């Protein structure tokens, strides 16, 4: 589904990613872990199409398309979803309004008819039920005055409504207490399917207690320095990132 080859990315003159290779197949869950500043969030943002980054080398293929050539909205309509680390507030815009506009943009791309208000409400209510969320969520302004946990759950709701093929969760666990973490994780688990792939970007192992990844990758100074199965995350938890990063790469930034 997703093939990242030798991806180099910089912001201005500063290189952030220095040759990422990663293959994600439908149905898989990948966790990308790493210390602060390793480039995890940059990778997530570049995949979603955030402007301001320069790809200096490499390629990203997504469902046989050149992902890097697509604008952010085209990627979203093609089934790429990024759950933000810091979801934005859109004052005065009801959640339901954003969800419906977004879903209809995506449906239009898929060649499906737009949903009218009533059909949409049916769809969105079934998703709320799936995630155990309250209907009042729909009528609040997007993320305005939401607690940290509510914002993250709102991201998961958007994901559930848009039904992406590739979902990237950028530090969705950060700032969540244990109950909120469980809610978010069970939401993600409910959305797992053989057609859908997940990339979980996280600093800590604890999210992976609830969402078990098929593959774990350690990112350091812009490269994947180690890959393994779920046990790698546990080992990192016990031994720290220092253990996982080869000595040669600790000092030199590419």
């Amino acid at each position, binding site marked *: 589904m997703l093939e990242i080859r030798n991806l180099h990315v910089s912001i201005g003159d500063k290189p952030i990613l220095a040759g990422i290779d990663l293959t994600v197949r439908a149905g898989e869950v990948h966790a990308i872990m790493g210390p602060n500043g390793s480039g995890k969030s940059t990778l997530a943002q570049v995949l979603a199409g955030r402007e301001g980054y320069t790809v200096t080398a490499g390629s990203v293929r997504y469902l046989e398309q050149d992902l890097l050539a697509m604008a952010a909205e085209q990627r979203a309509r093609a089934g790429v979803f990024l759950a933000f680390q810091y979801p*934005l507030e859109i004052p005065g815009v009801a959640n339901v309004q954003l969800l419906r506009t977004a879903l209809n943009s995506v449906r239009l791309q898929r060649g499906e008819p737009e949903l009218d208000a009533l059909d949409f409400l049916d769809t969105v209510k079934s998703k709320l039920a799936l995630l155990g969320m309250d209907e009042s969520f729909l009528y609040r302004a997007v993320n305005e005055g939401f607690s940290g946990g509510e914002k993250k759950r709102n991201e998961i709701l958007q994901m559930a409504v848009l039904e992406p093929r590739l979902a990237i969760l950028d530090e969705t666990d950060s700032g969540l207490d244990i109950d909120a973490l469980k809610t978010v994780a069970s939401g993600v688990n409910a959305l797992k399917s053989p057609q859908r792939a997940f990339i979980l970007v996280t600093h800590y192992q604890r999210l992976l207690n609830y969402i078990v990844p098929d593959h774990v990758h350690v990112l350091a100074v812009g490269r994947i320095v180690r890959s393994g199965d779920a046990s790698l995350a546990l080992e990192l938890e016990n031994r720290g990132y220092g253990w996982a990063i080869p000595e040669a790469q600790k000092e030199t930034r590419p």
Partner: protein
Amino acid sequence: MSDTEVRHSELPAPELSNPELRKRIDDEYRWGFVTDIEQEVVPKGLNEDVIRLISAKKAEPAFMLDWRLQAYRHWLTLREPTWASVHHAPIDYQAIHYYAAPKTRTQPKDLSEVDPELLRTYEKLGIPLQEREALAGVAVDAVFDSVSVATTFKDKLESLGIIFCSFSEAVQKHPELVRQYLGSVVPYTDNYFATLNSAVFTDGSFVYVPKGVRCPMELSTYFRINAKNSGQFERTLIIADEGATVSYLEGCTAPMRDENQLHAAVVELVALKDARIKYSTVQNWYPGDREGRGGIYNFVTKRGDCRGDRSHISWTQVETGSAITWKYPSCILRGDDSVGEFYSIALTNHRQQADTGTKMIHIGRNSRSTIVSKGISAGFGSNAYRGLVKVLPTAANARNHTQCDSLLMSDRCAAHTFPYIEVKNPSATVEHEATTSKIGDDQLFYLRSRGLSAEDAVNLIVNGFCKEVFKELPMEFAVEAQKLLAVSLEGAVG
């Protein structure tokens, strides 16, 4: 966040990478066509003879001519005001035609007598004058250049005793009402532009709703400037008698021309005891081109007088057009327990300038006012909110709440806030809140990553910003206003 004055934001504008967006930027003003119709035009320039001519053309009674001449003589003693936060080349008042009218044999009695070319113009503008099309229940009065061309639903309104007609017709048929109320809210000495209007106004709408009558439909006037080098000086007078209720809508457009055109209107509202007037405007005069060439100078005086106890006047405006907008729809809260409201969206894109706001003058006891102002600046646009809240010693327990928000959409635009507060009664409560924000790259990216195009993302953010004002507009008007904002903001990102 800032509470007084905010100039040129420091943040960089988002890059304009979307080709679709770039294409739409070049879209021109969609109402900019000229109707080819035979016009009767009075020669350029202003003097007493021109005023006598206008008055004679309208076969006005002597009191009207006297009033006009008094206004003109007063105007000669005035100088154009310079305090507004707008800039323009000097206006040559002698280079304007003060009267332009489509040539017709006589005043049309009904739609079948109206020039079909005119009807087609209004059709192009989306204003159905044919009653069968106006099923939405909106009675329309259409003013083309200087004269009113048609008023729909007249009979139905007449059966309730409601008078809704052109100002000229009111002068003929209801001179006693005109004489009683004209200039009673905005006297001819009020200000430079109102005084000029008093001297030369050519037409406009007149509404009288009798005691206890609730007007069953929205009343609407559609203003169109067509003739070249002409000014439009319309005068609207709305009177809601005791316990009456009326909702009035006003829309306007003009052709695209390289020269600036002057529009100096006056609107007077009178609400007697327990009466209620709601006045909504969607102003879309030609704003000029991207470089600031051409466009309408919209210098308007609008004022409502809550003359009776428990009377209520509400102004809602969506200002997207004009090269320069200078207007302050105001309320004089004379009656005890009277209520004044002002809900405004003002958008300036490219080189447009707006200096707009309101005045709430509290005189009656327990009078209340609410001000919600939303300013949107894009391109090189400049947007100023200027508002006065004045509580006189008689206005015990007066209350005002003002909320004044600015949204910046580029790094070259400007937003200013000039609140004036004068409180002479210690029992009054006056609150002022102000915010300034900018549409950020992060917000746009967030929405685009959900599948929205950059245009849709901007529209969603702007609609959210304006929501409190949109909900005050009549339903169909709110939909129109949202579309208009979207069109006016095309290309605003970048």
